[in-house]
């Protein structure tokens, strides 16, 4: 039976990366399609008419939307390899709770860090961001992964944000390693997995995007100028970047 898997995605999206990691964990072959977020394709608009956002997983022509829902779907369809969620209902509820926490707290505070001009707003965003990371560090405890002994759902939900850490640190002038050393150890541990390292773009690419956005919005490039690549931004990168505010 043909198993056609297509992923509509955008390189810098930490949500899209979740789907990439999950597919890689399961060893699923798929077609990756980069979306032009400033000029969204007909397929994306048809497959996700409600939110019009990436990622969208299209399995044998049928769309699945919202990154955590996609990861659960992947886990349920390809259930014979690398289980991502635990089998015990209480542990599953805990995993879903913490993945949701990443969406509610980490994303929002992180976004405020790289989009604000500075001053009190930036300090408040940094405080919220660091607090949320410290909570997650506490949840990790002394286990190698959020999933316990094995890499799992919450690891996938959160590790994709690590490509954005350098951008957050540069905009906010702080070090995540100083604040949450165990988390950075966990990131390095995850990056030893091919499913993760091959799915996540270079953090410097994220810094490039953020620097360009900030320049265009007069937010101030500052320290990020060190990361501006000298390669002329082609339309792909520009559009990918504008779209970052609304994956």
């Amino acid at each position: 039976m043909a198993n056609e898997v297509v992923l509509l995605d955008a390189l810098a999206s930490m949500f899209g990366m979740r789907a990439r990691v999950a597919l890689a964990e399961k060893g699923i072959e798929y077609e990756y399609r980069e979306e032009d977020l400033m000029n969204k394709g007909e397929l994306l608009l048809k497959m996700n008419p409600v939110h019009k956002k990436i990622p969208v997983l299209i399995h044998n022509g049928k769309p699945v939307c919202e990154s955590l829902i996609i990861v659960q779907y992947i886990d349920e369809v390809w259930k014979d390899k690398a289980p991502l969620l635990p089998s015990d209902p209480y542990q599953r509820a805990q995993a879903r709770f913490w993945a949701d926490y990443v969406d509610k707290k980490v994303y929002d505070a992180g976004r405020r860090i790289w989009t604000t001009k500075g001053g009190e707003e930036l300090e408040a965003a940094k405080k919220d961001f660091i607090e949320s990371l410290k909570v997650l560090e506490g949840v990790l405890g002394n286990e190698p992964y959020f999933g316990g002994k094995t890499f799992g759902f919450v690891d996938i939900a959160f590790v994709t944000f690590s490509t954005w850490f350098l951008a957050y640190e540069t905009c906010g002038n702080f070090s995540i390693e100083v604040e949450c050393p165990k988390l950075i150890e966990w990131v390095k541990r995850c990056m030893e997995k091919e499913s993760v390292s091959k799915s996540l773009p270079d953090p410097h690419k994220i810094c490039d995007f953020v620097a360009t956005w900030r320049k265009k919005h007069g937010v101030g490039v500052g320290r990020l100028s060190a990361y501006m690549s000298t390669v002329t931004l082609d339309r792909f990168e520009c559009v990918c970047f504008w779209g970052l505010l609304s994956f």
Partner: protein
Amino acid sequence: MSKEEVVLLGFWASPFCNRANIALAEKGVAFEGREEDLFGGKSDLLLKSNPIYQKVPVLLHNGKPVCESTNIVSYIDETWPSPPLLPPCPYGRATARFWADFIDKKVFDGGNSIWKSKGEQLEVAKKGFLEILKQLEGAMGEKDYFGGDSFGFVDIIAVPLTSWFYAYEKFGGCKLEDYCPKLYAWMKRCLERESVAKVLPDPEKVYEFVINLRKMHGIE
């Protein structure tokens, strides 16, 4: 075998708490409901069981807490599998989760923006809310329930929010049924179920509650 102890920390007007109430009733699970005083002072048990958000509902199963209403409904479904609330196939489940997530993101905030605003903002809020309800009608299509022929996960996530619709109508000066007749037909269908009828508060009481909320927010 130890006795199952199920406690639900809730609040009568909260549609989120009522999701859990309905799910437990659908499964025939005996539980102790404890009403939290959200304005007077949250209980130590609530603050200890949900330190992150300090909100209701919290389900305590043999002392272990589960938080966030949609998560609680999933947990109830997985722990007491009969009758199932989610469809058996992964695609059906993903679709159900998608609409549950849509409802979570849009409906309550969208509706509440009506009683929180005035003048032009109110018109914008009403228009936005009607669009959301129309999208939900689209999701249901010609089916009796969001789940198809039988009452299920998405119906449980959605129906408690409807007890606030009367308040939105009063503040919005509109009759929602005129705009979304299919949704109202679905609401009535759901209210014929004991699990729903016994749980959902009287919309008049919710309206009075919202009047007080507005005062507390310093509106008007």
